[in-house]
């Protein structure tokens, strides 16, 4: 910018440039600090006994070893896919049933009055508290795990859809009345499109909630999945495995968040806020 012409910069501009440089350096410094902290925390690590906090190198080795010597015949990717399949099925149900149910109780007053107390009670219970009851009912197979994920992520989408539909701008509805729209047209052509962003907020929160719940469900009893890797690491005092699991969960969670955001931008581009 200022390289071509040797323009005399004012005092404030020089200061601004220096600050900008500082803002670029600071993030790098903080990441370095984080790595330094990790190294410091792991200085007493003894790989033979497995005591203490594992070093980054040990975690890396363990991650590589997870591919060559899989746990329960599944590599890291396969474990992640098992977990993803579980939340995939659960979310498919959430997004169909949850959106329909949310629309019904958000739009029609009578069902709302009828179902609201029960739904609020259901929502008040933390998803993980259902785990003992569900395992009591359905054992520990694949279905109860998916059911737990559904229980854990259904509320967030229903709440969002309901909120979106019960707060449609009065003016849009009046426009519909003026143009003589039938009740069904008002719902499908006005109310649902105008609450699409709320619905998508529900899709996003339900995805991240599902990812968290599947992890907890797997930690409490499973033989595959990333949550299982963590609890396996904990049981066999294999801390590097625990950290590998945590990092994998973090990465997959971040990817899911980015994906849902991309889809949201594709389907309802007007929600992107101009800064």
């Amino acid at each position, binding site marked *: 910018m200022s390289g071509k012409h040797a323009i005399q910069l004012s005092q404030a501009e020089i200061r601004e440039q220096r600050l900008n440089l500082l803002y670029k350096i600071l993030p790098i410094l903080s990441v370095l600090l984080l790595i330094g902290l990790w190294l410091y925390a792991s200085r007493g690590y003894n790989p033979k006994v497995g005591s203490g906090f594992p070093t980054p190198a040990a975690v890396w080795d363990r991650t590589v070893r997870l591919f060559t010597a899989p746990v329960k015949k599944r590599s890291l990717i396969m474990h992640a896919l098992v977990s993803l399949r579980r939340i995939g099925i659960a979310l498919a149900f959430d997004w169909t049933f949850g959106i329909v149910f949310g629309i019904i109780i958000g739009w029609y007053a009578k069902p709302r*009055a009828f179902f609201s107390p029960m739904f609020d009670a259901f929502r008040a219970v*933390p998803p993980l508290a259902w785990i003992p*009851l569900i395992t009591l009912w359905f054992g520990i197979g694949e279905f109860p795990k998916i059911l737990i994920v559904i229980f854990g992520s259904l509320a967030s989408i229903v709440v969002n859809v309901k909120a979106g539909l019960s707060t449609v701008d009065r003016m849009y509805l009046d426009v519909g009345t003026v143009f003589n729209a039938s009740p069904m047209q008002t719902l499908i052509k006005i109310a649902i499109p105008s609450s699409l962003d709320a619905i998508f907020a529900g899709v996003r929160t339900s995805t991240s909630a599902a990812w968290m719940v599947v992890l*907890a469900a797997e930690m*409490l009893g499973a033989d595959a999945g990333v949550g299982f890797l963590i609890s396996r690491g904990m049981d066999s005092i294999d801390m590097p495995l625990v*950290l590998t699991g945590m*990092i994998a969960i*973090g990465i997959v969670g971040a990817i899911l968040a980015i994906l849902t955001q991309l889809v949201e931008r594709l389907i309802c581009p007007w929600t992107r806020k101009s800064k």
Partner: protein
Amino acid sequence: MSDPTTVMTNEERVVYMQQKRKQTQIRDTMLAIAGVLSFLLIWEAVVMSGWVDSKKLCSVLEVFRLFIVKFTDINPDGAVLLVNVWSSLLIALSGFGLAIVIGIPLGWLMGWYRGFDAFMRPIFEIIRPIPPVSWIPLSIVWMGIGLKAKSFIVFFAAFVPCLINSYTGIRQTKEVLKNVGKTFGASNFTIFWKVGIPSSLTMAFAGIKVAIGNAWATLVAAEMLAASSGLGYMILMGRSYGRVDLVILGIVVIGALGVLISLLITRAETYLMRWKKV
């Protein structure tokens, strides 16, 4: 049209609308009661018809009876109900309190000072996507299975929404308000303190509400994986002894306490935000 309001005087119209609103209110309350009652009746009917194994579902009355008995009876999990409630509350509130005390000021600082934001943001972004539940094994290794480890996990769950909301809240401070401060010669810190923080409080409270939900949900997981008392532990013990009434009671108590806590927070919010006109 058949709308009767067209042939009325104004006074009549007001009375008519009030009546109509009252009727809707009554109808909604009746529907709500009907909904809950029909749920409970179906539950009872399923139990009585012997459709499901009595080990898998017990009657509503039995849960209620256990609720009363559990105040004095320590079987089968080794603590009376209030002791379990107390130990859960202690963990939830200590982790949650810490999250508010650390998370919200941190969000304010990150939202206001660009340098601090540039420094803290990468650390935060690295830690954020890791679900709090997955910290459980590590925190057990670091701190054992006592109160400290569990409140650490709860802290993690509550910390993120506190920080994000106070950050976004202070970022949304109106430029006009900041400029007024500048015009009157306030220093950057004074503007931060007297303009930025008050205007971010609404968002911060929304974050606190999300945080308490998260904290309460994570608590159950923490207590299931490592505890010797608490509501999560009680549910898990009910599961191991095959006592379905205990499991259902635990779920109901956890849900009810969660509602109670968020009600208290809403109260605190309306009290603290009373200076703000709607």
